């Protein structure tokens, strides 16, 4: 009866409805299914709900600078009065749209990103997009995205990072980026704005580090899933709001740490998560881990730790040196698998295991993400050498795959528990 007045749903509405469903399903799980929920996380749950279910735009009247990958320096964007919006996408709905435009075996992250652009359905539509030439698929996706009528500029990114030539090359790319953006914005880059932007992002990073410190403790007061949500919010949130919300979160965690409130079970194994990035709402693997009594204490992914860990250090606070510092940080510290050699990533994972007293590593690669798939072997070998248990998983964005993955994760977590008992 009530359906009589029902209008036929447009494709855009259908897409929105599906995405809202994906989003709210995860948000409700986060809100309700875990013990000892954190009050100040509500800001982040609500933020994602506002953006993905209620389709609120956050940056009306501002120029939105779309970025793909983490190598486009937000410092420069802020200094030139733009708002960086990272467009890496985690929606299965968009992945399906993108599947028609990309090779069958392509990476779901890229398919979803391309699908999102194809639909043109944005709450904060980017006015210009900068795409660093990282992995093959992202690099090539640029032209597809451009063909939908977006203004997209490729930023040359070197794929070796050891050589001095690559340092020079990337410094030049970053300068070029600043020139392009400054032209687009009709604003000259100045020293004060750039310095303030560096300090603001540095401050945001320092909050992330404080947040991480809680995860080093024996009693872990926050879920890995929640941290992923916090870091993912940084992709698009108003930076001042993000800072405020994270400050609140930290104060709440301080209290929780004192009162010894934990989100884990009695003997939840501590996990370091590495591999293809979990991007909202594709938290499939982290969710399985934490629903199977594991706790993610740290990660090595570009949607979280890699985005915050390394900080820009400036020696001479003049534009020339600030620009070089920014460039170097985005290249030299990066542990992205697209680079030729990658001992840095291995060293990083081992160090995270030590620092966060983790007992095992879970490495997931998206089916189709060749670079993470390829690096799997060397990382596994290295972990074996260090005596760190590791589980390798392949996954995609489809909601159907859950059962088989959880069996493997559960078995791994059980084995970690047994290992611990034996050690005692």
């Amino acid at each position: 009866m009530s359906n009589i007045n029902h209008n036929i749903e447009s494709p855009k509405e259908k897409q929105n409805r599906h995405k809202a469903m994906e989003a709210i399903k995860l948000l409700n799980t986060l809100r309700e299914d875990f013990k000892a929920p954190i009050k100040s996380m509500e800001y982040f749950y609500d933020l994602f709900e506002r953006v993905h279910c209620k389709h609120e735009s956050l940056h009306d009247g501002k120029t939105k600078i779309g970025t793909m990958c983490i190598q486009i320096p937000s410092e420069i964007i802020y200094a030139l009065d733009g708002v960086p919006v990272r467009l890496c996408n985690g929606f299965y709905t968009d992945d399906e749209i993108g599947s028609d435009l990309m090779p069958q075996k392509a990476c779901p992250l890229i398919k979803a990103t391309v699908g999102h652009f194809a639909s043109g359905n944005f709450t904060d539509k980017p006015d210009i997009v900068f795409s660093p030439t990282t992995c093959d698929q992202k690099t090539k996706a640029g032209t597809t995205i451009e063909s939908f009528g977006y203004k997209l500029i490729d930023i040359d990114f070197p794929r070796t990072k050891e050589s001095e030539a690559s340092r020079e090359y990337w410094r030049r790319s970053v300068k070029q980026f600043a020139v392009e953006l400054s032209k687009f914005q009709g604003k000259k880059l100045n020293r004060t704005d750039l310095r303030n932007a560096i300090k603001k992002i540095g401050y945001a990073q320092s909050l992330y580090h404080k947040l991480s410190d809680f995860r080093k403790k024996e009693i872990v007061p926050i879920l890995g899933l929640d941290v992923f949500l916090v870091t993912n919010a940084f992709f698009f949130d108003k930076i001042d709001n993000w800072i405020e919300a994270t400050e609140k979160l930290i104060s709440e965690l301080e209290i929780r740490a004192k009162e010894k409130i934990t989100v884990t079970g009695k003997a939840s194994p501590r996990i370091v998560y590495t591999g293809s990035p979990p991007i909202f709402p594709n938290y499939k693997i982290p969710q399985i881990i934490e629903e199977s009594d594991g706790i993610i204490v740290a990660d090595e992914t570009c949607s979280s730790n890699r985005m915050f860990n390394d900080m820009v250090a400036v020696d001479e606070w003049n534009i020339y040196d600030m620009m070089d510092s920014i460039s170097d940080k985005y290249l030299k510290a990066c542990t992205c698998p697209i680079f030729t050699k990658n001992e840095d990533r291995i060293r990083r994972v081992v160090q995270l295991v030590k620092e966060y007293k983790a007992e095992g590593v879970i490495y997931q690669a998206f089916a189709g993400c060749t670079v993470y798939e390829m690096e799997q072997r060397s990382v596994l070998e290295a972990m074996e050498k260090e005596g760190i248990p590791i589980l390798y998983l392949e996954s995609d964005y489809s909601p159907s795959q859950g059962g088989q993955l959880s069996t493997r994760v559960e078995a791994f977590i059980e084995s970690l528990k047994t290992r611990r008992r034996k050690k005692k």
Partner: protein
Amino acid sequence: MSSLKKKINNMNLIRFRFWFQIVAFVLIVYGGYASLDLGDKLPTFACVFNSEGTGGKCYIGMLQHDLKNPFEIFTGFAGYAFLISLIMFMVWFWVLNKSWCGFVCPLGTMQDWLTALREKLKIRFSEYSWASRSNIKSIKYILLILLLIIPVMISNSIFGLPKLPNGLSMPFCDICPGRMLIPAFTGNFNQFYIDFSSKTDLVMTTLGMIIVGLFLVGSFIKKRFFCYFCPMAALQYIFSKPALLKLYKDGAKCTKCGDCYRACDMDILEIADDVTNKNLVTEDCILCLKCVAACPEDGCLEANFTGITIFESTKEGFILRMAMNKQKESHE
């Protein structure tokens, strides 16, 4: 104890070093007026030509002087005296290791002042290209060998070569920028001259004038321009291994972010890229500890004195030094 440690790790190294260098400069350049005398084996450019002001004497100067003797002399008592001088030099050096360069040497400090001036004027610094970097490295050793051999060749004929003229008795001092610049700080400009008395003197003193010019211009555009060529650095490095002050790195904690390298006035790549060695006092390092202050990883780099960590990199310290600890916009 731990709060003191935290204070030290959080310190503003740049400011600390700035003032330390000033105090050291005053002691070395003007100490003599207050009858300070640290002896004549100092591993730093306390110039003998600043005869009234100097608070001690430069061993490079003394070394050349000591070597200008016939071989026979060294077999006797003078040989022991020579060895004892060398040991005295080493002992002085071992206390601070290359921090003599980063914190004490007046020539080093002068270069840092020129750098500060350039920074104030917002002029970009230049760097040596990587190809020339490796060629430059050997120059300081060549200079060291020359300054050791030339004085010997004045009193001795080596390989049947004729003895050198007496004008070359202090060959490095002739071309050392310290000879002119350090006395200048006490109002003594007498060293700015060209000596026409003999061909050798003419060539050497002219060279000296040119080098002073290069020193001033060079270190204005390139940080620590002169230190790359300094034979004192070469002599020090030979004895650096057993020194008490060390720069240690824990490679496991390093992300190779390069922050340390960018802070390094000597452009030492190893400080960022070497993740296997522990002792990171490399040949050109001046142990200024700027890298430690610029490293954001807890405990990755440290200054260590006789096995005790005295200053180490911490995230907290980094954030304070970069003024990233509060959300405050500055306008100027």
